[in-house]
């Protein structure tokens, strides 16, 4: 039930944009996005519930395509603080989340 994330790793210069994708083989009820910095706990970014919505705050946004069982996280005008590993977590309804293997994002000056 583990979702697949791509790319596995990406390096950006400050100010560049990035897209991280998450896809599942199962019908999804929700998609969560988290960021984890080295040695720290994952931190919740946002949740998207089924309905094909798009969400965003600041320069980070996400979309959820229910029919394709996919979600994408968009980071625009990246900052050094965006560095970390991004995980999507997928929920199929009345249960917990299953997390992907992560996308390591490195932003350099």
């Amino acid at each position, binding site marked *: 039930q583990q979702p697949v994330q791509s790319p596995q790793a990406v390096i950006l210069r400050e100010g560049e944009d990035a897209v991280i994708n998450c896809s599942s083989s199962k019908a999804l009820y929700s998609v969560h996005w*988290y960021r984890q910095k080295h040695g720290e706990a994952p931190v919740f970014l946002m949740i998207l519930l089924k309905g094909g919505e798009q969400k965003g705050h600041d320069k980070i946004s996400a979309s959820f395509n229910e029919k394709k069982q996919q979600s994408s996280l968009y980071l625009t005008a990246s900052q050094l603080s965006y560095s970390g590993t991004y995980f999507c977590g997928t929920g199929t309804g009345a249960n917990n*989340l299953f997390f992907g293997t992560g996308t390591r994002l490195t932003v350099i000056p």
Partner: protein
Amino acid sequence: GAGVSQTPSNKVTEKGKYVELRCDPISGHTALYWYRQSLGQGPEFLIYFQGTGAADDSGLPNDRFFAVRPEGSVSTLKIQRTERGDSAVYLCASSLTGTGSDYGYTFGSGTRLTVV
């Protein structure tokens, strides 16, 4: 409390020993989750509680692993006869009530378990 608290932060134990890992969730969060994370991997689901009951324990790898949440707040993950393969960071998370995936999770800082 203000966040999810996990103790101990680090635990080194000998193969074959018994360990208990504790999680104190955010006050008012009825959902509690245990995950474990190995280096370079995403969190792997172990068990999910709604209130006092285990709503889903399908992620527990075998019968050496057991978790309780007797009063619907603090939870303890118990591992018997530890093996070197149990070494990982054990993460606890809590969220507001729901079906298990419709509220964001707040994670604790984890317990790093090393079995030698």
